[in-house]
C-alpha cells in the first residue's frame, strides 16, 4: 500500500481545507442566524422586512448557484473573492438563513411568564434578552444548530466546483491520477462521517453542560 501514502496526504490536506471552510462558514452562519432571527422579532418593520427577505432568498435558492454567483458574478461588479472567501460567504449565508428560523422559533418558545418576570424586575428589553431569554432559548436552538452544522459540513463539497482543494476536490484528483474510484471516495466518505460525528458529539456535550441543573436532577 506504500504507493497510496502520498495520495492519502493529499486527501488529508483536503480535509484541513474542509474543516477550515466548515468552521469559518459556521461562524458566519451563526452571526447571520442571530442577526436575522432577532431581526424577524424586531419591533421595527424595516428590520423585520430585511430579515425576512434575507431568509426567504437564501433558503429559496440553491447553494450551488449562490456559490457560483459569489465566485463568478461578483467579480463582474468589482468584488473579487478568493475561492475560500466565496465558499465561506455562500455557505455562511445559506445555512445562516435556515438557522435564523431556529433562533426565532427558540426565542418565541420561551414562555410569556419569563418576559413578564423581566418586566416586573424592570430589566429592560436588552438585559432581559441577554440574561434571561437568550440563555434559555440557546438551549432550545442547540440540537437544531447541530443539524445545521452537519448540513453545512456536507455542503462544503460544492466548493470543489470552484477549484478549492477540499476533500471532494482531492478525491477527484486522486481518482484522475490513479484511475481508482473506490479508494479515494471510500476514504472521504469515512472522513466526512467522522467529522459529522465530531459535530454531533460536540453539540451534545455542550447541550449537556448547559442543561445542568435545569431538570433538578443533575447539578
Amino acid at each position, binding site marked *: 500500500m506504500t504507493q497510496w501514502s502520498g495520495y492519502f496526504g493529499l486527501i488529508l490536506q483536503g480535509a484541513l481545507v474542509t474543516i477550515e471552510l466548515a468552521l469559518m462558514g459556521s461562524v458566519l452562519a451563526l452571526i447571520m442566524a442571530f442577526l436575522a432571527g432577532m431581526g424577524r422579532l424586531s419591533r421595527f418593520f424595516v428590520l423585520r422586512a430585511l430579515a425576512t427577505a434575507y431568509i426567504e432568498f437564501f433558503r429559496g435558492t440553491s447553494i450551488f448557484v449562490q456559490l457560483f454567483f459569489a465566485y463568478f458574478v461578483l467579480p463582474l461588479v468589482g468584488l473579487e473573492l478568493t475561492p475560500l472567501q466565496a465558499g465561506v460567504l455562500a455557505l455562511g449565508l445559506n445555512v445562516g438563513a435556515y438557522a435564523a428560523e431556529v433562533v426565532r422559533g427558540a426565542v418565541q418558545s420561551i414562555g410569556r411568564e419569563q418576559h413578564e418576570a423581566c*418586566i*416586573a424586575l*424592570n*430589566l429592560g*428589553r436588552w*438585559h432581559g434578552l441577554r440574561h434571561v431569554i437568550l440563555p*434559555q432559548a440557546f438551549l432550545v436552538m442547540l440540537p437544531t444548530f447541530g443539524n445545521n452544522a452537519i448540513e453545512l459540513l456536507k455542503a462544503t463539497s460544492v466548493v470543489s466546483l470552484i477549484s478549492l482543494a477540499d476533500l471532494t476536490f482531492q478525491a477527484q484528483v486522486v481518482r484522475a491520477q490513479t484511475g481508482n474510484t473506490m479508494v479515494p471516495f471510500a476514504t472521504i466518505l469515512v472522513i466526512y462521517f467522522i467529522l459529522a460525528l465530531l459535530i454531533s458529539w460536540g453539540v451534545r456535550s455542550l447541550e449537556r453542560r448547559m442543561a445542568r*441543573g*435545569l431538570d*433538578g436532577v443533575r447539578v
Partner: protein
Amino acid sequence: MSATAPIIKVDAISKSFGAFKVLDGLSMQVMPREKLALIGPSGSGKTTILRILMTLERIDGGHIQIEGEQLYHMERNGQLLPADERHLAKMRQKIGMVFQLFNLFPHKSVIDNVTLAPMLTKGTPRAAAQKRAMELLDMVGMADKAKAMPAQLSGGQKQRVAIARALALQPKIMLFDEVTSALDPELVEEVLNVLWRLCAETDMTMLLVTHEMGFAHDFADRVLFFDRGRIVEEGKPDEIFRNPKQERTQGFLKKIIAAGHRV
C-alpha cells in the same frame, strides 16, 4: 406630598380583552403602608388590576397615579402624553410583583435569581448584591438553598425565593398575585408566614389577590370585593367577611365557605 396622600390612585380605568370588558371604569385609592386584600370570583378583574399596576397590561382608558405621578402618561408642557418606555421603567422602580407561578429564572441559581436585577438595573456591585440577597434569603428562610437551582425546590420554596427576588429591588409597593394558589396545601403556610414577616418588618404597601379568605381577614387593613370589573363592596375585613352588605359578596363568600375555606 402630605402624609395622607394616597400612594396609588386609580381613576376610572377600563380594560377590555377583545369584546370582554375586564375592568369597567374602576377607581380606587391605596394609602401608603396599607395592606389590601383583593377578593372575588375568577374573571372579576382583580388580577388584571395588579397586572396593570405592574405595566404588564395597558389600559384602554382612565388614569393611574403612583405617588402623585402618572403611570401611563407623561406630562409634557402641561399635556398628558402616553408614557414611553423610559417613563415606565422609572415608574416600575416603585413597584414589585410576585406571581402565582413564581416565574423564577430556571437557568440561574437561587442567589443569581435574586442578584440579577439589582446588578443590572441599579448597578449594584456583585459583592453588595450578594450580601443583600443573602439577607433577604435568610428572611424568607432560604439562605441554605442559595446555590440550588429552582428545579430542585418545592413550590413553597420557589415562591419564597420569588418574594426575595422582588424585595431585592426595594419597591415601595408589592403586588402579590395569588401567590399560594399553585401550592400544595401543606406548603401554603410557609409562604403566608413570609408575608406576615414582611408586614411586620417593612413599611411596604401591599396588594394581595388571594383565595385564602382566612389569611385575607387577618392580614388586610381593607378588603375589596371585585365582581365583573367593578369593586362591589369594600371595607374592614370584619365588615366584609362577617357582615357583607351586598348580595353578590354574600353569595361569593357562601360559595367559598361551602368549598371548605376558613373565613
